[in-house]
């Protein structure tokens, strides 16, 4: 049989699943991009919150007012992290559906590390709860322990993105799947590291704006909750953080873009990304203006900043998607092709079977006693012991009584302690069982038991 599905030498081409998608591919992709962005927003806030909180806590060892600020930030992490997880399931469902083969292949190639997500995130979450709920109790000599817990949580949050990034990066480059064995080698594919730094800086910038909005909102009693700070001070502090982090993206952004593997970079990608960058520059200018604003005016531009930033995020998310599609375009054609060819073979074979022609070469039509006996031959041999008595012994008991054999095979008992009990073969049907019974008696009659 010639192999009809010659696989490309360069990349593995798996076959697609047979069942149709439950929803149009386009709709699913819209779902995927939007749901993913919502998910990643909370991941950003969880990660950034954790990092800032522990940094402020360390500063707070010298300047106590920062300790309270760190604590207020830590209180938000446990909420944001719960939302991050639960909102991650939606995009996970979508990516499983739309990129089934690519995602699962990348999962399998980095499996040991991939599954560590579960215990690592659990530990990181428990550590942030511990950090949050021991703030008042672990003071004095135990403060160092408390800071350590905070650092551990932040460190875990900083490591875990690698596990995700390596997967969604690896799935884009099927031509490299053969070169990858395990998590660490997958980090060499594509441009994981620029993506990572881009992501971390974005997290810190967004967290700056979130903390600003949350901790200086109108109803929030800043003087009570954050002694030592005034509302404008809080605003200026977090505006600064957001500003410098966004400024840093001017380095990481181009780094990411120019280290992208060539295949997948298209004109459309550039247009979308550059319009995002242009909007981000406007945001930068507005942030600068806010930092320089007077106490009574600071904070006025927050809503337009957030709106523009949403546009930036949408542009970047769309850009990512365009790149992914362009990367996988060729491979998807190959998959569709391989799937269609296999499906054609499958259908042709089924039609042959339905027409009573047999599947072809290897499958025979119509049972014979000899053929049915294959079901028995693994345990019963003619005149030696396999896993059950030899046929000569069977024949001695059921001489001229094929129906007796049929009855036994349908409802076997257990006679001999040295063998495993025989299973019932009633599901083969009386006709076949009778055939095999006669076959057994026939072949044993040719053997002389005395020999």
């Amino acid at each position, binding site marked *: 049989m010639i*192999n009809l599905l010659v696989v490309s030498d360069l990349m593995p081409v798996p076959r697609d699943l047979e069942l149709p998608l439950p929803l149009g591919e386009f709709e699913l992709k819209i779902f995927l991009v939007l749901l993913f962005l919502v998910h990643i927003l909370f991941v950003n806030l969880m990660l950034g919150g954790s990092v800032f909180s522990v940094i402020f806590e360390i500063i707070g060892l010298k300047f106590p007012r920062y300790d309270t600020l760190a604590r207020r930030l830590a209180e938000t992490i446990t909420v944001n992290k719960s939302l991050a997880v*639960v909102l991650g399931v*939606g995009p*996970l469902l979508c990516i499983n559906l739309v990129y089934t083969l690519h995602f699962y292949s990348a999962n399998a190639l980095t499996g040991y590390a991939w599954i560590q997500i579960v215990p690592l995130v659990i530990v990181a979450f428990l550590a942030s709860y511990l950090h949050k709920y021991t703030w008042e109790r672990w003071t004095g000599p135990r403060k160092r322990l408390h800071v350590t817990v905070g650092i551990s949580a932040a460190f875990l949050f900083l490591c875990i993105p690698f596990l995700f990034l390596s997967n969604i990066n690896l799935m884009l480059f099927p031509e490299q799947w053969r070169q990858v064995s395990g998590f660490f080698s997958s980090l060499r594919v594509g441009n994981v590291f620029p993506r990572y730094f881009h992501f971390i800086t974005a997290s810190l910038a967004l967290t700056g704006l979130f903390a600003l909005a949350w901790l200086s909102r109108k109803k929030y009693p800043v003087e009570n909750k954050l002694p030592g700070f005034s509302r404008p001070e809080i605003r200026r502090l977090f505006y600064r953080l957001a500003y410098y982090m966004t400024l840093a993206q001017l380095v990481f952004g181009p780094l990411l873009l120019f280290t992208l593997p060539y295949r997948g970079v298209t004109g459309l990608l550039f247009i979308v990304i550059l319009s995002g960058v242009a909007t981000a520059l406007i945001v930068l200018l507005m942030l600068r203006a806010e930092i320089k604003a007077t106490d009574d005016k600071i904070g006025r531009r927050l809503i337009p900043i957030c709106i523009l930033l949403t546009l930036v995020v949408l542009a970047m998310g769309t850009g990512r998607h365009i790149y992914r599609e362009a990367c996988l375009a060729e491979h998807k054609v190959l998959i569709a092709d391989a799937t269609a060819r296999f499906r054609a073979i*499958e259908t042709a*074979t089924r039609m042959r079977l339905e027409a009573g022609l047999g599947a072809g070469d*290897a499958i025979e039509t119509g049972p014979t006693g000899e053929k049915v006996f294959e079901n028995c031959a*693994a345990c019963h041999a003619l005149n030696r012991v396999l896993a059950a008595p030899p046929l000569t012994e069977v024949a001695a008991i059921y001489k001229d009584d094929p129906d007796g054999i049929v009855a036994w095979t349908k*409802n076997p008992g257990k006679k001999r302690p040295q063998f495993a009990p025989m299973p019932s073969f009633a599901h083969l049907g009386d006709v076949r069982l009778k055939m095999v019974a006669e076959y057994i008696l026939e072949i044993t009659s040719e053997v002389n038991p005395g020999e």
Partner: protein
Amino acid sequence: MFFLDFAGNRILMAVIASLHVIINHPFAVGAYPLVTLMEWWGHKTGQPDWDRLAYKITFVLFIITTTVGALTGVGIWLSAALIAPFGIGSLLRIFFWAWFTEWLIFVAEVVLIMVYFLTWKRWAEGFMKKVHIGVGVTLSVFSWLTMVIIVAILGFMMGSGTWPDQRTLFSALANPLYLPQLAFRTTFALITAGLLAWFTLFFFTDTGSEFRRRAVRFVSGWILVWSVPFAAASLWYWNVVPVIMQANVNVALLTMRFALWYETLAQLMAAAVIFIALTALIGILRPKVIPGLFLIIPFVLGIWLLGHFERVREFIRKPYVVADYMYSNGVRVSELPVLQRDGILPYSTYVHHRTVTSDNLVEAGRDVFIITCSRCHTTAGINGVVKKFTDLYGQEPLDSNTLRLFMKTMHNSRTFMPPFPGNDKELEALAAYIKKLQDDYEPIFNAQTDWTIKADTAGSMP
């Protein structure tokens, strides 16, 4: 393919999924109604002790469910994708809308548990307290609804009802095991939540206090009240299972062994239930008598019972992962004739060899093993193939011809096994490989550790 050489892939799934169930049933579905009831009772009778207790228990629930509970839930997705990508991928295409709805409810559940716990102290008076209790009630309903949906899918895996013909979401949901299993799990969750609360009482109330006595009595009452519907639901489920089981597994031997095991299990379970009920009764009549640590026993018993139900459930679905559509090893029923005629290697993506020759018999056999057997079996670890055969044929060197004969027809003699999805040449290779494993064990590397796979495959494609 992902593969755990010693423990077997099944273990990974079993650990994550069991942990999830152990958290989900007592800590979420069953516990939210219980704490809400306590809160309401405290509010109604003006006893702040109840409120404090409910708050403390909710703190435990909050921490556990939003960490271990949530992540093991996601972990089931991740591990299923590693172990049975074709199976979970297909299930997802059938049940997308069910899972999507469940996800929305799940989001609401997480938001509600955060609101419920984090506003407890702020919404403490008058109207806001009523709102807070309302949040508790809504939370209870939502967390139960997630169970309502998931159990439908679990039921589907055990018996697909009319789905193979109709192929619609509804036909898949309306499977015969659904309602009994749902009733069983719901009442079971309510009881184990009581067991959990019992246990935590001894940390959260003062020893010898009047309130502890009342709390023990209250929780005991809760357990006793739910015992009656639980017993009824168990009987119902109990009686439906063997019917489905017999429909799927028509082998007298298995049914015999199963029946025996089933009966013993039934007796043990009955004993466990009676023990729990008796403890509850003592709790009501003589709340003082019960020592704190003693209460961990009924809790562990409850978990043990649940574990057995999960085992039976997993066994019934075999040899399929999607009933009558896809076998446990990811082979579809309808592609079987092609694979048995042409072989599975030519159609596989990640293999070293695409044709079996006399030179590569053992190596091609290993490829076949990884594709067709390794979803459930290891070589020499848990559920290892070599042991399966030496159990049957004894310790002497295995005969590869006998192995071949056995595997060719094993779906008839062991009806929980799928038919071998390859041609005779591949069967011969597999037999040679297994025989070699018996003489000379070597570990299998998987896609992540196999540094050789790329070298071989890249060069030797047909």
